[in-house]
């Protein structure tokens, strides 16, 4: 962990040399251990698509996919995601240059106003649809087996509950929810 070209000290280092795998690309970085994944993306790797809203895990603007699961990158320490796969909004466009189906649905439904929360909304929606396709319940899913078994069985109420970790200060929810419902089923 301590690079040999640095003098050894009695206290352990407070920085780390690590490889971050972002959108399939490995990046070798030296980071202060305090660096959040969000700051590593934005300030060290020039990937400014993920946004910093509250920096406390409350707004969801920083949402990225970590090993396919949506997480708040502001509360994730970069040093703790060594060896794992991170996908940001910059990595959603396919090899053919086409928008991801969720991105396309946001455009078609005008699911934004200022756009600041949009990268987080889109990454969160992709993660959420995957959770629904895995049969994961939400707080509004009935306790019996009558709830949605896949993302295309979600209704607006389910989408609102499952997306409650993404705030839109403009209040574009009226178009965000239909966009996500439209894209549901397309990500499997």
């Amino acid at each position, binding site marked *: 962990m301590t690079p040999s070209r640095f003098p050894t000290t009695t206290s*352990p280092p407070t920085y780390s040399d690590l490889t971050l795998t972002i959108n399939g690309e490995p990046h070798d970085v030296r980071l*202060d251990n305090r660096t959040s994944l969000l700051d590593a993306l934005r300030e060290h790797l020039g990937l400014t698509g993920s946004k910093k809203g509250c920096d406390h895990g409350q707004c969801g603007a920083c949402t990225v996919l970590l090993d396919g699961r949506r997480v*708040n990158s502001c509360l994730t320490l970069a*040093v*703790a995601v060594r060896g794992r796969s991170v996908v940001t909004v910059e990595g959603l466009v396919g090899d053919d240059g086409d928008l991801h189906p969720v991105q396309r649905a946001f455009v078609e439904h005008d699911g934004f106003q200022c756009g600041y929360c949009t990268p987080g909304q889109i990454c969160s929606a992709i993660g959420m649809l995957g959770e629904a396709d895995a049969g994961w319940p939400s*707080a509004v899913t009935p306790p019996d087996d009558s709830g949605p078994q896949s993302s295309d069985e979600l209704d607006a109420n389910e989408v609102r509950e499952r997306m409650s970790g993404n705030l839109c200060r403009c209040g574009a929810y009226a178009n965000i929810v239909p966009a996500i419902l439209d894209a549901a089923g397309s990500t499997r």
Partner: protein
Amino acid sequence: MRSFAYDAPATPQEALQLVNGRADARYLGGGTNLVDLMRLGVERPARLVDVSGVLADSVESTPEGGVRIGAAVRNSELAADSRVRRHYPVLSQGLLAGASGQLRNMATVGGNLLQRTRCLYFQDISKPCNKREPGSGCPARDGINRDLAILGVSEHCIATHPSDMAVALAALNAVVCVMDHDGERRVPLDDFYRLPGDDPSRDTTLASGDLITAVELPAPSALTEHSAYRKARDRASYAFAVGAVAAAVDVQDGQVRDVRIALGAVAHKPWRARVAEEALRGRPATAAEFESAITRELEAAEPTRDNAFKIPLAARLTVAVLSGLAGVEREDER
């Protein structure tokens, strides 16, 4: 934020060794609370020992017919586990009532148990707080205290424990498995948490360096399978509780054979309503009996200026959940 060393040990034993005796070392799970508290300056560790890769991250069946939940299992995975949904619905519902989809994907079971109070004074280092800085005082008692405790309070602290999951676990008689240098010991959830008394700095009975490895649930029963969680909050979703109840009831021939009630957002720990439980065993399963029992429990409440509303709120939540589970009509629905 204070700078810190980061270690990702390969085994739980190595993790214990790294934290051993260091008051300024912390285990790191999902980081959803710890990293935030570090950013706020409330926590200032000099070393983080990441245990998310060394603790079990699966739910296993136990020889006794229950389940053993690895401490690194993420909240979202536990909520979706088919055994949990079927046999311990209160736990799945409690988990899903907490935080957001993103945070549940990050938060571990061990870390959820150890999250700190959301009392505004605890989280604000510019103000005194006996929990954060012993002896500095409790401005919450005469300050902004609408969200704070009504049961088991002390003159030194009226903080509440914020976890929904822990309230559900309290109703399930869960056992916390804790590792130290001598091996693993089992701590019933009710003994795991403590009341503030004259030392609010300690949320739990854990000793410095203790590592949570798992949570075990006893074999399911008619009781656990008839269990539910209900949470009242200021928004429809994604907010801490102002009142919550985890309850389980086994009704036979119209009589309460057994019952468990745990209240959330009312105390320094998940509050097992043992007075109410005792009062209900063997009694007719009716809304009136439920109400009378929980009212007796809440006679011990010591509300502040702004949180007396929690007494009727906790009572109504309890009557509603028990009535729903028992399939009986509530007075106010007649």
